[in-house]
């Protein structure tokens, strides 16, 4: 088998670090992402490769320019692709696990960028659910009877995203003396 597809449940990798860990586990088992797109958050195409120690970095950046890519590439990182505004990079290594975010402030900034994305989508979903309840209760619209299902689905999307946003904004970022690992 040289190719396979991994399917994820919703919020399987709620933070960049979780996705990095999963990708690194795949690399150790001889798999790497074949191509990334917006659907890769729920299904990812993988291809077989030589098992190796590979550091993956997931960087939430909505607008990137050539300088962004040049900086990473100059530092030895290979661009993997974009997954819903998450820029994914990888780098093979043998000694110490390389880091792209080497100080507390930039790790914190990464969490905040991620929180913005989840917060906006989550808030919109909750607003949609709330609006659907109001319209449904007031019997406004053509399919007024469907409002519990539609509002429920929107709430199921919105509540975890808002919870994740709160967790990201409250998360304690390790200090430099505690090392470079996010938790």
């Amino acid at each position, binding site marked *: 088998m040289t190719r396979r597809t991994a399917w994820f449940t919703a919020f399987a990798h709620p933070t960049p670090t979780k996705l990095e860990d999963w990708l690194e586990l795949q690399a150790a088992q001889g798999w790497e992402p074949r191509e990334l797109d917006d659907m890769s958050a729920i299904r990812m195409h993988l291809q077989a490769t030589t098992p190796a120690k590979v550091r993956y*970095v997931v960087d939430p950046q909505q607008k990137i320019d050539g*300088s962004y890519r*040049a*900086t*990473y590439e*100059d530092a030895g990182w290979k661009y993997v692709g974009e997954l819903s505004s998450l820029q994914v990079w990888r780098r093979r290594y043998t000694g110490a696990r390389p880091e792209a975010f080497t100080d507390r*402030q*930039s790790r914190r900034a990464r969490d905040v960028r991620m929180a913005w994305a989840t917060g906006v989508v989550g808030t919109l979903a909750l607003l949609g659910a709330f609006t659907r309840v109001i319209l449904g209760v007031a019997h406004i619209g053509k399919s007024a009877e469907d409002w519990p299902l539609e509002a429920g689905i929107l709430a199921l999307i919105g509540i975890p995203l808002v919870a994740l946003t709160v967790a990201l904004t409250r998360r304690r970022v390790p200090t*430099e003396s505690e090392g470079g690992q996010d938790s």
Partner: protein
Amino acid sequence: MTDLKEELSETMYCILLSLREERHGYGIIQRVADFTAGSVQIGAGTIYTSLKKLERAGWIDRTRTEERRHYYVLTDRGTRALAEQTLRIERLYAYGRGIA
């Protein structure tokens, strides 16, 4: 403009030091590793984030773009901030030496 003085990290301080001469992102990483003898290693994500922050604060300016790389240098405001930070560190060092 953002006031960075209260949150200036070792990384940021080293970036400012390296930008007394015009440099691009990876050039800064190399220069800092060089003058700190490798003890301050700045990652690509950190340098990109930090440069954007320093530019927003008006401490550095983008001078040109060549082969996709943006080049930066300290502004007058950044030069003054660097001098102030150096004095602050010297003061703290003197306090430490006085009681250590």
